[in-house]
């Protein structure tokens, strides 16, 4: 085992790549739950984003169209969750889970209908990497960030944007108020349900972007269930990061690093002992369980998170 295998530029670059889909789902979770709606349909939103991104790329040969289509479908799926959770006041876990199953079945079925057994076309328009020429020559740093994908950068920019939005703007303040104490928000004239709708729809778009990253930036194809639970890991990253965008970034990087290590340590050994890579690759999942079980210090969700809001007087 070498230092390079642990913290080499290759491992760190891979960490960023692997963290990005988790990060985008986590950001979606932050926006939705800060407004008071638990959206575990993020996994499903990711999956439809991955699939419909591929379909749109295949049809239009345009990356922009593909990404817009992916996010639109993600928004659509999230909107169904929003109607169930906000308008019909149904159980948000059940609704989210149902949509995840729907997304899995729907994409699997349509994948077979569209592309049969041959798989998605190999000439898909992919999301390009952004080459930062001046950095490329810089040792180490250049190797880590000079050739990252456009969506990796978009994810990092979104962290800043959403952090500023939530904590430094008026709409952000209102969104947080809706998630903490919706009745208080309503009594000062804030439209609670409307705020929640937009937050849930935005969360679906973010997760779908993460899905499109998987299919259009990394794999350049779609396979059944290719998101592999990254939406759920994103939710864990959100909890780990205490419902803040910056926290979610840190948590996503930890999860990404865990996966990157499990790749880079393939076949490595310490002395005569082989590093148990299979065990290492469980690291993100173990961290997820710890995060969800509350072992990462006291982290408090928004007070009205997951609780449907009922306007008074309609009892």
């Amino acid at each position: 085992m070498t230092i390079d295998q642990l913290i080499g530029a290759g491992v760190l670059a891979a960490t960023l790549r692997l963290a990005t889909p988790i990060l985008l789902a986590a950001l979606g979770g932050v926006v939705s739950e800060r407004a008071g709606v638990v959206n575990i349909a993020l996994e499903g939103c990711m999956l439809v984003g991955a699939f419909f991104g591929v379909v749109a790329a295949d049809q239009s040969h345009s990356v922009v169209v593909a990404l817009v289509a992916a996010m639109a479908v993600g928004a659509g799926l999230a909107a169904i969750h929003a109607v169930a959770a906000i308008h019909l006041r149904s159980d948000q876990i059940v609704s989210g889970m149902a949509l995840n199953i729907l997304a899995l079945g729907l994409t699997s079925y349509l994948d077979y209908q569209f592309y049969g057994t041959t798989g998605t076309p190999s000439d898909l328009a992919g999301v390009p990497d952004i080459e930062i020429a001046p950095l490329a020559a810089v040792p180490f740093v250049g190797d880590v960030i000079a050739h990252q994908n456009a969506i990796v950068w978009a994810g990092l920019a979104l962290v800043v944007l959403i952090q500023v939005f939530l904590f430094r703007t008026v709409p952000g303040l209102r969104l947080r108020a809706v998630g903490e104490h919706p009745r208080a928000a309503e009594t000062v004239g804030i439209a609670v349900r409307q705020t929640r709708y937009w937050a849930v729809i935005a969360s679906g778009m973010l997760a779908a972007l993460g899905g499109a990253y998987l299919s259009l930036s990394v794999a350049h194809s779609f396979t059944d269930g290719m998101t592999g639970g990254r939406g759920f890991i994103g939710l864990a990253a959100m909890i780990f990061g205490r419902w803040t965008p910056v926290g979610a970034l840190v948590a996503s990087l930890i999860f990404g690093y865990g996966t990157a290590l499990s790749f880079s340590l393939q076949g490595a050994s310490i002395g005569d002992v082989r590093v148990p890579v299979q065990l290492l690759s469980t690291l993100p999942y173990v961290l997820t369980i710890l995060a969800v079980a509350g072992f990462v210090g006291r982290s408090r969700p928004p007070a009205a998170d997951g609780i449907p809001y009922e306007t008074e007087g309609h009892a």
Partner: protein
Amino acid sequence: MIDARPERARTTGATAVGTERVPLLEMRGIRKRFGDLQALDGVDLVVNEGEIHALVGENGAGKTTLMNVLYGLYHPDSGTIRYRERDVRITGPRDAIALGIGMIHQHFMLVPPLTVAENVVLGDERGGPVLDDRAIEERVRGLEERFAIAVEPGARVEDIPLGLQQRVEILKVLYRGSELLIFDEPTAVLTPQEVDELFAIVRTLREEGKTLILITHKLREVMAVTDRITVLRGGRNAGELVTKQTTPAEIARAMVGREMKQLKARATPPRTEVILDVRGLEALSDRGSPALRGIDFEIRSGEILGIAGVGGNGQSELAQCLLGLRKVAAGTIRIGGIDISRDDPKRTRARGVAYVPEDRRIEGLVLAFTVADDFILGKQDRPPYAANGIVLDPAAILKAGGRLAVEYDVRPPNPRAIVANLSGGNQQKVVLGRELSERPKLIVVSQPTRGLDIAATEYVHERLLEQRGQGAAILLVSSELDEIRALSDRIAVMFEGRIVAVLDAASATEERLGLLMAGHTEAAA
């Protein structure tokens, strides 16, 4: 829908009692139905500009419903609202705020993790989409100076006491330029001293030209600060009075519709036998901080010990320790000489301890159960309810339930009724029936009349005094000082996890209790 009938409103409005001033607000014939319940049945309310108007009535009389109609949270089925001599239609809080109507809610409408200033400006932040903390804090500070209301604008609401949180609510309303301020049961969570401070603010507001509506059922407060009074009973008007020309007894009669019963004097003095003996009791709160820091007291047979104190000073934890519901960190709890401080609730109850918990709907009852099932809760493994300890005997349960329902005046006396559908008073009777029917030695009672109407309150008090007469020791925790003073033989005041004083009921004036509750031990000694 509100149907506009300006003519009728104008002619009848002139007959309002009292002053010559122009009515600022006229609500006429307001009706509102929830399902089977006619919450408001044609209620009128006329408020003059610049007065403090009391809206009084029992729980369920329709006070809060009427104000929620005025604030746009409920839409009335019929009736008209005139404000500043114009017919208005209020479809939501935004409309009310725009008219200059503000509400200080009973359950504060504050977002705990946000700062005082953020809470004040929320929904009306002004100055563009970017949040400028310093600017809004300055604006709030200016408002505080104008109305002589002091709160640190940069503090987080979750870190400040309830009395200050209420000031944030008042600032919120003033910030929006409200001319008519509705206070919904504003003193429910305050100490007597905080009440005085609130009333000072209330009077300042009137001097500043504001009009105030005070929703309350505490007659002393009505007499202390208001100018006129509207009484509601059962969703209808039950009287309009001028404060200076009336008496508390007259108001109470209008509220209840009959004379109030006088509590029977505590005829017998407590006996000598000590039932409960608590020494050096310590326990932690849910958050792991010390909640009880060394409690000593005893209660004798036939004695009621009242526990007074501002909520959150260890009263709930004390009750839970006595029942075995909370781990005792140190000290002893003896019932008839036997230490029960390590016992679980089942063993504790087997020693003859009964419990009327502070939230009957969460701790006291399984709401989805029938009256009969809730009556036998905790005894379900005993004959006759389960002969062998496992299989229930529905016939025996139903029979016992029917008997207790009659004995404890549950209405309707139907053992098959679902408890969730009963009124608060009848739910409490189910709790009492279960807890008092087996001759307990010690009864731990917490907030026994919270949310109950006057008749149900009287019933609960009579039953407790009856138990006292039969020799039970009773620990009474209540936030209603009047209740504690009326029932207790002695009154212990809790402050920050300690009993800071034990007073004889006779010498426990409200002022002394208030000072002790606020932690001023020397001043009240």
